């Protein structure tokens, strides 16, 4: 049990795996981008403009303004998560890429860490493009928004690591439905992306406080609209700590799974 919680020995060679994933991605990136960005852009337009017309101001801003920061962040969450669930599972089980790579000087720790770094990169790509889209809508009105890319990195790394930990338990493709439907989707809806959490029943607010995305969404709003507060440092710490924890745990869990 102890060996699940220790710090794994990852070397710089994990970058080789990141390069491999990048090279494979570059061959199909148009398709992949569509998959990652179609949803958040649709939400932004449909909900922001469509639903927004029927809503009054929310927390002193238009509905479009209200949901934009959260959609940037959640697009990172989904892109990183899909990469380190379906993507990594495919490479590990069906393509046996992991097996092939650990016959080279790379260790299994390097391989898993490299895949997590790649998942993080996918999250960064999606988040950055969404950030640009939101900017193009003229929704960014604070210098503090320069902090958003850092937040995107943090969120992507957290969800890449969390998803990899989930993947280490999954036996079939279908089993990811549990992770997505019971974890990611509720997180998406109950972390304050679409509605403020303070006027909901107590149990919902308490529940949402347990979701890491909640802090990320609050930070993103604070930065984009230039109202930084204690939530920025505290929330970041609340994202970084589980990210590092799950990074270590997921590498160790994957090692236990692959090496028999």
């Amino acid at each position, binding site marked *: 049990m102890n060996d699940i919680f220790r710090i794994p020995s990852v070397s710089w*060679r994990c970058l*080789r795996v990141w*390069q*491999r994933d990048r*090279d*494979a991605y570059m*061959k199909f990136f148009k398709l992949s981008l569509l998959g990652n960005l179609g949803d958040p852009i649709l939400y932004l337009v449909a909900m922001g403009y469509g639903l927004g017309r029927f809503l009054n101001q929310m927390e002193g801003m238009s509905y479009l303004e209200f949901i934009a920061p959260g959609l940037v962040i959640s697009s990172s969450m989904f892109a990183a998560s899909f990469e380190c669930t379906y993507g990594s599972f495919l490479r590990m089980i069906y*393509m*046996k*890429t992991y*097996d*092939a*790579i*650990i*016959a*080279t*000087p*790379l*260790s299994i720790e390097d391989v898993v860490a490299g895949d997590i770094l790649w998942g993080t990169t996918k999250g960064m790509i999606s988040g950055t493009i969404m950030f640009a889209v939101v900017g193009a809508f003229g929704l960014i009105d604070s210098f503090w928004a320069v902090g958003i890319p850092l937040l995107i990195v943090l969120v992507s790394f957290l969800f890449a690591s969390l998803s990899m930990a989930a993947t280490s338990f999954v036996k079939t493709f279908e089993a990811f439905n549990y992770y997505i439907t019971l974890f990611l989707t509720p997180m998406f809806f109950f972390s304050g992306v679409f509605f403020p959490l303070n006027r909901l029943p107590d149990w919902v607010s308490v529940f949402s406080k347990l979701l890491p995305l909640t802090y990320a969404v609050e930070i993103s709003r604070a930065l984009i609209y230039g109202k930084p507060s204690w939530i920025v440092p505290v929330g970041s710490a609340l994202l970084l700590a589980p990210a590092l924890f799950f990074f270590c745990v997921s590498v160790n869990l994957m090692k236990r799974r692959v*090496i*028999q």
Partner: protein
Amino acid sequence: MQPIILAKNLTKRFGELTAVDSIDFTIHEQDYFGFLGPNGAGKTSTIRMLYGFSPMTAGQLKILGLDIRTAARRIKEQIGVVSQENNLDTDLTVLENLLVYARYFDIPRQEARRRAGDLMAFMQLQAKEKSRVEQLSGGMKRRLVLARALINKPKILLLDEPTTGLDPQARHLIWQRLRSLKSGGTAMILTTHYMEEAAQLCNRVAVMDAGRIIATGTPQEMIRERVGAEVLELRITPELDAQVLRTIADLDLETERYGDTLYLYLPEGHALAKVLTDRLMGINHSEMIHRQATLEDLFLRLTGRELVET
């Protein structure tokens, strides 16, 4: 001469199951060493320990003078692996597979391109350079896995059933290529259930069964010592065995009955075949086959079972 692989009491257990049961073997620089055994004998489990994929449960394993438990990375730098299952990168083309693999070994890009070109030529894959892996035939995939295993110019090549499932032509092409590597000084360890493959490629073999090595030596030596030079297979009903044995009692031959066949093992240097066939003509048999002894016979003699399940 220092052995390149030294295994002592090498053991692999999966829970209750002992896949490799305390085996010893030594492999030298020029060796083409074969592990021969039926399904589940423990061949793959053994190979996987050799490149640190699978941690050994007990024993000692030194490769190129290094301990696998402490120096896996340095050992893997000098090994090429052809695993039992093709694990090519299906996201990439033939050439990309080689280049990306070269990068895992930190081979500079220019050098990697040169080696990839040479290896594609060597394995007759140039025409497929830009093909995706799914577009390759089984034999081509296997050749690509082999090319990939050679990208780091390994001192030791590990081959887990390199030609299983291939047609005779594809198999012969791979055998040729493997033989031509001998002159380059690469040592080779392969597993197979085909005695022909072992005979074609190996100067030493270890016969494995149920996780143990039950015999080692050069194929010819082992066959001569434990089987004989030639074999006479006699398909007769078991009731006639006694009669046959009486007829040939004066020749002092080893015999054995498996299934529908009575096997007579003929030692080297005696022209017994003629005598035997003459004497046995009179006994009612459906078929009589006279042939050279093979590793298959050795396995049969050692375990009482056939090597290749059909």
